[in-house]
């Protein structure tokens, strides 16, 4: 009954622009750029809106979101949410991944991100996400949580050191979707 977006699909031209950084089919091949495939629709919608509005400051995204209408955003979100998520290629380093897993349990990441780290609604998928991006994003939450960044995330990551963030990122990046 939730008002669903019956939006038209994004144009091939627009998707080609996104693919330039986010990869074909939303699976990033560039370290530091996030994958979009399989992200919850509401998460993508919300992030595109707050980036467009300037509430979340992502300078590299600015030119690409500037002209997006609400309908465009709805269409993009629906498109990427439906794509199969990237499956991690390599195996993790066991000790690093184990440390990250222990941290994730202690911090209760699965509460919001789900035990599979698939995310839900406004909470992003973490499983199989680009490891470099995860570290950078977590550092932002920890050190510079500005407008557009969730207050719960800032509180959760407060006090973790860089090694711990790296362990978390390693565990999550290698979690199979």
């Amino acid at each position, binding site marked *: 009954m939730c008002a669903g977006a019956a939006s038209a699909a994004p144009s091939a031209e627009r998707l080609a622009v996104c693919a330039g950084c986010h990869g074909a089919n939303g699976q990033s091949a560039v370290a530091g750029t996030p994958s979009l495939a399989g992200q919850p629709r509401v998460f993508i919608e919300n992030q595109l809106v707050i980036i467009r*509005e300037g509430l979340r400051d992502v300078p590299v995204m600015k030119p690409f979101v500037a002209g997006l209408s609400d*309908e465009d955003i709805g269409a993009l979100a629906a498109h990427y949410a439906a794509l199969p998520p990237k499956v991690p290629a390599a195996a993790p380093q066991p000790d690093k991944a184990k440390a990250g897993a222990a941290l994730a349990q202690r911090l209760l990441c699965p509460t919001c991100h789900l035990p599979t780290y698939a995310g839900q609604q406004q909470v992003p998928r973490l499983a199989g996400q680009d490891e470099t991006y995860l570290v950078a994003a977590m550092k932002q939450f920890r050190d510079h949580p500005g407008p557009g960044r969730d207050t*719960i995330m800032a509180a959760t990551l407060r006090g973790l050191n860089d090694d711990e963030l790296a362990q978390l990122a390693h565990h999550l990046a290698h979690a199979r979707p």
Partner: protein
Amino acid sequence: MSANWIWAAPALLLLAACQSMAPPAAAPAAPVAAPAAAPPIWQQGRSADQASSTLAPVPGRMIATAASEIPVASLKAPAGFKVELWASGMPGARAMVRGDSGKVYIGTRALGRVYEVTDSGAARTSRVVVDKLTQPSGVALRNGSLYVFAIDKVLRFDGIESNPTAQPVDMTAVFKLPPEQHHNWKYVAFGPDGKLYVPFGAPCNICEPPPEYAQLRRYNADGSGMEVIARGIRNTQGFAWHPVTGELWFTDHGRDWMGDDTPEDELNRMPRAGLFFGYPYCHAGGVPDQDIKKANACDGVTLPVQTMGPHAAVMGVHFYTGNMFPAEYKNVLFVARKGSWNRTKKFGYDVVTVRTDADGKNARIAPFLTGFLDSSTEAFSGRPTYFLQLPDGSLLISDEQLGAIYRVSYAR
């Protein structure tokens, strides 16, 4: 307030679950290393048997919902009442205030916008007055000036109705806003005494609030004369003055993570300043808190007129004073229940009336507007939030989830 604070550094507090769309403002102060053995402070207040819960706040919708996708026909009101879509396309629309010219100003949270709606008679159009603010949900009008309360800013737009490009006067400094964000997005209103009533919610799910939180203050319109008039209020997002007694009535959100059915949200009456409404020690109709224990926890607490249901998310309240609705609705309180997240089965997602004596006794709740929630599937369409009574006696109801406003009218 006691110095026995469970939480330490500023931004380190909050819900025991993920938050939907509240963008934080300033960077936090000195970090505090969480001890390895203790649970992280953000999930404080959650019991062990809920450790595997994946309950999380309902995400708002940040893009516009087309009118054709708003299921007004599913909404049900008592016999003789009609519900129609009055305006739409305003994601995040919350509290509404109306100027003398008929323009309606509407605050939002995450999107950071304040909308202005113009009614041409045939249709409503809207524009954005200001944006990129940090949760500017508080709006109030006085002498032609629009007051906008964001979490960290107060702006006043003079003559806004006739001067759409009025540049705001920044009033932030005089209102002495404390730094914490959680539960500090505002509902504000001018009282019959001409003063501006501003709440400051507890910056956590459950904690000993620092001295400047969990309270209601009032100020002169210029920010002078600040008084704390009530304490022990966790998070009020709606209040109104009784048409006969002039007393303030307000809703208060109960804490999370004490289970599906307790503590309930509250509807309170404030017969005078200086009362204590219970938080953090005593909730709802006299429920001692399970984490912050105090002997005789409910002694000295002003208990609610009526509990409003578990995790209902009570929002706007309005005493009906018009002549359109049947006489039995005169001076009756309408309450919007936005609906639960911290409950395995959803509750609320409706508008109810609460009939009481003027002193709050003999309270009876009755459904007024339903149809937002399908309990058999747990799917919901919208979430009713705030009220605005029009001069003709019809009642506008905002729906934050769908970015829409309904108009409820009555004809025999």
